[in-house]
């Protein structure tokens, strides 16, 4: 019985291969985008774990000095006192245009489990190789490939367990590379360490729990949440296709269902067969989707890696590893998505009376009442989304706002379109126009899912591109102002730096760019000391400030904080900012600092030197009208390598290049989502075209040519796409506002002004029309080429 029934059910797909294709393609596309995002996230997390796993960063408590690096003597004192500690020196270095994170360890005292794999007993390395010049360094294979034979670096060995962009070496080698002058950043507390602090030996040290070190994962969480939201959105757009196709297949098979049941097939068996058929299709589509997703993720990963490097300084490999976890999650979501999309249809079959009319009904016929109900649900979602940030804080509230806005608008769309089409019909003059508007309104239920998908894609495009373009405009303006010096020079050593300053006297004004890394309000931060130059007052934009902010700063009576530090700690001008133990200054002003994940503060240079006399004094900004002349003179005098002497035009160009690369992945996801929406329209139009013949045949019989009917069909697609765009525009702008004012603030710690870009809207409008046109070409061509005999069949079938 089951076999016979299943063969009857499956025979539908043999007769409707295009429908089978759209169902599988829709689900595969949806799964592909979701899987791609999951694959990228999994790869990134693997990298973070590898980074955190080095030296057991995530596993050990640490001791560090809030004021900066501690002297090596502290380590020796603690060891002599019986504290089981191991020193770590950490810093960044730019080598052959590659940012390198240097981790210096002391192999004798470091925990064995956290040593690079290449240092194991079976490696055959001798202590001499490790400690004697040029020393030995361990890095990821791809990093070794880039840095091999670079002068100044230790001999490099590949260690696949390390994340890219990181070099682990002996602390003495690291000290030389980072010019740390014997300083160490922290001490790992090994098992058996006493509780509390070594107050008698080193009273300034602070103890940090292991989880405090997971900064990278915490910082990048918001980025991955953004990416996941995009993946989910693409999946939702794909599900619209699946829902439409499954709904149609169920409607078209109503006569088969009734006959099967009339012939004695129990309802439960029918439902279970349909469910099995659905799961089988979802499995096939899911597997295709995962394969596609892997390809998409592989193509996007280099740009995602650039984004993470640009925004957070996190290193990711450029290649993708296959991880069964995301593949299974892709398969799971394909099955779940298919079930969600089919739930309504299955429920209808469950409730369908045995003697229900066997004729297939119009696809998704929706009454005006149902349309109003759907619009009311959409309005409720919009309100709920708007209320989310009022009720809760954080990124999740921001995403609830976005979700409510997008889903709510999508649900309201058919109602708005119906109203617009009614208005068109009431103003139509000729009979063709009258029929066109009325008929378009009648087609709306069949097309509404695809149009909702288009709305989501368009609104996301408008929202995200407005956000990115606003960001770029702000960033460019900010760079123009912030890069106050015409030349930036980094001396190779303190002695050279001192000679540089002497040499510059009378040649160019210089601004020291001296900073120390220290915790600011319990998070990683950096403190800059700046000299009293009028260029700061005229070029350094402040978002919020006390009236005499600059005077306070240069009188050592105030501190400037970046937006991230101020927002995270709810600081306003006048509030106290803690810069170290017992060192508190009032906040004089807040400045924007795009692209920096960490808190940052600025104080007057003399104050900085008073508290941190050890600050490296290597970097300087030079104010000059003769950039080429000064550059040449500096080269001649100091023989500086190119990387140590950068003019602000190069810096600006590099920054914008990094910025643009950062958002390449966003643009790619935008295009993919729009393509999926275009595909949704195509499937809906193809589906409808199979039912259009009986509707169009009378018109043809009444004297409208096939060509004319085909033109009207194209016009209908264009009109609906244009109307959908009209709704998507305000939704997209609202989305941009949410991203700029809510999500960005939560995710990155900065708020950006919103700018409008009508040219982009025009381009997107043309793209939307193009998508609708392309999607309508196939069904319209089919219509234009329909033989009169096909139209006649409509009338002949009457008997």
């Amino acid at each position, binding site marked *: 019985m089951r076999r016979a029934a299943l063969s009857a059910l499956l025979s539908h797909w043999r007769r409707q291969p295009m429908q089978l294709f759209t169902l599988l393609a829709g689900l595969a596309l949806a799964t592909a985008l979701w899987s791609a995002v999951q694959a990228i996230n999994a790869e990134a997390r693997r990298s973070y774990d590898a980074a955190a796993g080095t030296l057991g960063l995530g596993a050990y408590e640490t001791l560090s000095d809030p004021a900066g690096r501690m002297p090596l003597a502290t380590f020796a004192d603690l060891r002599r006192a019986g504290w089981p500690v191991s020193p770590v020196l950490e810093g960044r270095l730019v080598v052959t245009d590659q940012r390198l994170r240097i981790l210096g360890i002391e192999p004798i005292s470091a925990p064995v489990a956290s040593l690079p794999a290449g240092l194991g007993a079976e490696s055959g390395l001798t202590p001499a190789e490790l400690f004697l010049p040029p020393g030995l360094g361990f890095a990821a294979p791809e990093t070794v490939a880039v840095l091999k034979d670079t002068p100044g670096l230790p001999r490099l060995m590949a260690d696949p367990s390390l994340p890219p962009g990181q070099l682990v070496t002996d602390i003495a080698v690291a000290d030389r590379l980072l010019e740390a002058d014997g300083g160490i950043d922290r001490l790992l507390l090994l098992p058996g360490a006493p509780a509390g602090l070594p107050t008698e030996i080193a009273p300034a040290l602070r103890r940090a729990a292991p989880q405090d070190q997971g900064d990278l994962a915490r910082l990048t969480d918001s980025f991955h949440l953004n990416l996941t939201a995009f993946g989910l959105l693409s999946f939702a757009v794909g599900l619209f296709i699946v829902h439409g196709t499954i709904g149609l297949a169920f409607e078209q098979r109503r006569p088969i269902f009734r006959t099967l049941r009339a012939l004695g097939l129990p309802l439960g068996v029918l439902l279970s067969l349909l469910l099995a058929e659905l799961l089988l299709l979802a499995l096939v589509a899911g597997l295709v989707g995962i394969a596609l997703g892997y390809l998409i993720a592989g193509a996007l990963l280099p740009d995602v890696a650039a984004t993470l490097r640009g925004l957070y300084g996190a290193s990711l490999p450029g290649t993708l590893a296959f991880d069964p976890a995301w593949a299974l999650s892709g398969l799971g979501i394909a099955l779940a998505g298919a079930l969600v999309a089919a739930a309504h249809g299955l429920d209808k079959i469950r409730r369908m009376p045995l003697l229900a009319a066997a004729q297939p009904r119009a696809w998704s016929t929706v009454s005006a009442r149902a349309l109003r109900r759907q619009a009311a649900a959409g309005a409720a979602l919009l309100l709920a989304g708007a209320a989310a940030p009022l009720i809760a804080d954080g990124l999740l509230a921001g995403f609830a706002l976005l979700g409510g806005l997008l889903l709510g608008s999508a649900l309201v769309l058919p109602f708005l379109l119906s109203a617009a089409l009614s208005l068109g019909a009431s103003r139509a003059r000729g009979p*063709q126009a009258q029929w066109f508007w009325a008929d378009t309104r009648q087609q709306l239920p069949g097309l509404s899912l695809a149009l909702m998908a288009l709305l989501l894609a368009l609104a996301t495009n408008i929202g995200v591109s407005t956000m990115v373009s606003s960001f770029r405009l702000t960033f460019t303006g900010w760079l123009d102002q912030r890069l106050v010096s015409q030349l930036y020079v980094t001396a190779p050593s303190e002695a050279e730096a001192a000679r540089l300053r002497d040499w510059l006297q009378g040649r160019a004004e210089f601004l020291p760019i001296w900073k120390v890394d220290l915790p600011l309000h319990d998070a990683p931060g950096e403190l800059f000391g700046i000299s009293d130059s009028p260029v700061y007052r005229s070029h350094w934009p402040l978002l919020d400030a006390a009236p005499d902010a600059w005077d306070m700063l240069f009188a050592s009576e105030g501190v400037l904080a970046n937006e991230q530090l101020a927002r995270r700690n709810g600081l306003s001008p006048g509030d106290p900012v803690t810069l170290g133990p017992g060192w508190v200054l009032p906040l004089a002003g807040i400045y924007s600092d795009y692209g920096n994940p960490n808190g940052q503060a600025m104080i007057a240079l003399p104050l900085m030197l008073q508290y941190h006399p050890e600050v490296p004094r290597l970097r300087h900004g030079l104010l000059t009208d003769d950039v080429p002349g000064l550059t040449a003179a500096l080269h001649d005098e100091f023989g500086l390598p190119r990387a140590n002497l950068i003019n602000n035009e190069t810096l600006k160009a590099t920054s914008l290049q990094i910025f643009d690369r950062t958002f390449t992945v966003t643009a790619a996801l935008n295009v993919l989502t729009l393509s999926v929406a275009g595909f949704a329209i195509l499937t809906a139009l193809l589906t409808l075209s199979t039912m259009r013949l009986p*509707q169009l045949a009378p018109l043809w019989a009444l*004297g409208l040519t096939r060509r004319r009917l085909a033109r009207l069909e194209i016009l209908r697609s264009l009109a609906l796409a244009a109307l959908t765009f009209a709704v998507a525009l305000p939704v997209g702008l609202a989305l941009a506002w949410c991203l700029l004012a809510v999500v960005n603030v939560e995710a990155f710690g900065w708020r950006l002004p919103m700018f409008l870009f009508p040219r982009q809207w025009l381009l997107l409008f043309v793209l939307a029309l193009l998508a609708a046109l392309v999607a309508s070409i196939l069904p319209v061509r089919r219509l234009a080429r329909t033989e009169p005999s096909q139209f006649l069949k409509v009338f002949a079938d009457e*008997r």
Partner: protein
Amino acid sequence: MLVQARDLHKTYKTGDGVLPVLAGVSLTLDPGQTLALTGESGSGKSTLLHLLAALDAPDSGSIHLAQTEVTALDDAGRAAIRRERIGLVFQQFNLIPSLDLAANLAFQARLAGRHDPDWCAALAERLGLTPLLDRFPEQLSGGQQQRVAIGRALAPRPDLLLADEPTGNLDEATADTVLDMILELVAETGAGLLMVTHSTRIAARLSRRLHLSQGRIA
């Protein structure tokens, strides 16, 4: 002469080969004349009606409607003939579901550029549709829908009314009422009428009758 069809041949290709449907049919129809076309299922009645309606083209033979040779026209020309000079009534009514009755009634006349609101109002009145003009087809009974289809076909004052089993879906009493209306209005407008029917009772009420058998006039 309103219609002159000469030696019409028509075949259809099927999976089993070529199926001859019409094999040399000729007929004439004068203005104001009513002609019943009867025959068994598959005898070619509907095919002949489709050829006369310029919905399809014969393999050979010619059709003249008034002075126009329909068989010499291209797709657009045939569409214009259908729009302006022929009224069609189908068994399944084939109204446009998205338009209300008033719009359906005037639709073809407006397409043809021959819309006469007074004539449409008179037709609606004669057909008993006036109180229903703001309704949609799905809200009407079969008899009411067929009356709208008749009104739509006659609204442009066509030269020829072609009806394919117009009462086939209606009960006997309603069928009689609908037929009365068709005959009355055809007489009033002076159009020629060719009606395909299975019913000898209905055929008997028309002025002429032709019987088709195996693609030929019997």
